[in-house]
């Protein structure tokens, strides 16, 4: 199938844009079909040139044996700012620890570790730093370890009015026992 050059360029742009990593000319050829590798390389060269001459916000770079869209160096200063002050991100260990503290507060670090089966030093520090948990008291046992509990910021993050709004065990069971494969109608078709 013969395709117009401009049409092909548009498709190449879309592919480079949406790809998760560098795309080889070979892979592009597989996708568009019926176009010579040499032609693809020529078009990518043209595109890259247009970006550069036009002072656009992307460049085509050859990397790891493939082609990739990237932002030009002269815009780096601004692009960097994108990653500043992003909303709080939560890793799984963080969430799990938070869940344990939320449901079992007040709780000591040793008790959290007994449940999680791994040490939670770093995670706990992060949670404290983000003000999602706090030290609420000391436990009256030898060593008098700290007891941890959640903060108002925790409620805010999860959009809870108060702790009583946490799902009850029953609701938890209802929701957690709903793997999507149990519903034959939801995924197929």
């Amino acid at each position, binding site marked *: 199938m013969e395709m117009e050059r401009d049409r092909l360029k548009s498709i190449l742009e879309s592919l480079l844009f949406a790809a998760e990593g560098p795309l080889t000319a070979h892979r592009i050829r597989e996708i568009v079909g019926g176009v010579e590798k040499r032609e693809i390389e020529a078009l990518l060269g043209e595109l890259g040139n247009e970006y550069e001459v036009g002072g656009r916000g992307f460049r085509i770079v050859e990397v790891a044996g493939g082609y990739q869209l990237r932002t030009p160096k002269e815009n780096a200063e601004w692009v960097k700012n994108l990653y500043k002050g992003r909303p709080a991100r939560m890793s799984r260990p963080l969430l799990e620890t938070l869940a344990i503290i939320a449901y079992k507060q007040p709780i000591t670090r040793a008790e959290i570790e007994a449940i999680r089966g791994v040490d939670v030093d770093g995670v706990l520090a992060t949670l404290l730093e983000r003000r999602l948990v706090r030290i609420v008291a000391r436990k009256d046992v030898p060593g008098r370890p700290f007891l941890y509990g959640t903060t108002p910021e925790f409620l805010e993050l999860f959009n809870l009015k108060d702790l009583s709004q946490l799902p009850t065990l029953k609701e938890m069971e209802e929701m957690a026992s709903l793997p999507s494969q149990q519903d034959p*109608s939801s995924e197929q078709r």
Partner: protein
Amino acid sequence: MSTSVKLEIFEGPLDLLLHLIKKNEVSITDIPIATITEQYLATLELMQTMNLDVAGEFLVMAATLIHIKSRMLLPAGEDEEEGDEGEDPRAELVRRLLEYQRFKEAAEELQSREILGRDVFARIPDSPEHNPTVVIEQPSLFDLIAALRQILERFPEERVHEVVLERVSVREKMNLLLDSLHQRGRAIFQDLFETATSRLEVVMTFLAMLELVRIRAIRISQEEGMGPIMIELAAPLGEVQDRMAKEGVGDDGDGA
């Protein structure tokens, strides 16, 4: 449960009714109830002969249709029900059908939009501080629950070689919980874990509790405000034990 099995094309009784109404080229607001009921029942029968499990809601609707039909047959004025003399017996059904239809149409509208990942694509950027662990932006309550589930999922590793022991123990725990609740009346969730001496035991107690909730032997509730999670028997102990025996849970299988 098999109630989620649906006749392929019909999402539920309302969907089936809309289909029949369309097929008969009649108006939703003036359903020839006898005809539609007959066809509806015929479809259910077909589903059954095809060995499809007819979900409960289909049967409930069948009963509703038959009821409406019988009311339509009554001469005007003899219909005593609810005292709503002037109301068409079909009115409530019509209201439900119209409402369902609106959302069916809305769903089609959504379907026809430029859907991300189907019609249009955005970039999956590799952020500078690329993090290999699963990261969730703006976690929701559901994430919290999922996290807790993951904790529970990790525990079974211990039971690989202890399957029998664990089963016995959970049953044992269920009975212990029931006894304890019978004595105390109500208990605070955390307190029920007080006597646990190991991680395994905590999990067992937790599993036992979930199982008891599942068979509706116990009830879990929360007070207002910052109240603790409260646990209590859902019925008198004897009744609960009968139910467990019937369900085949909680006993050791040898009648002991």
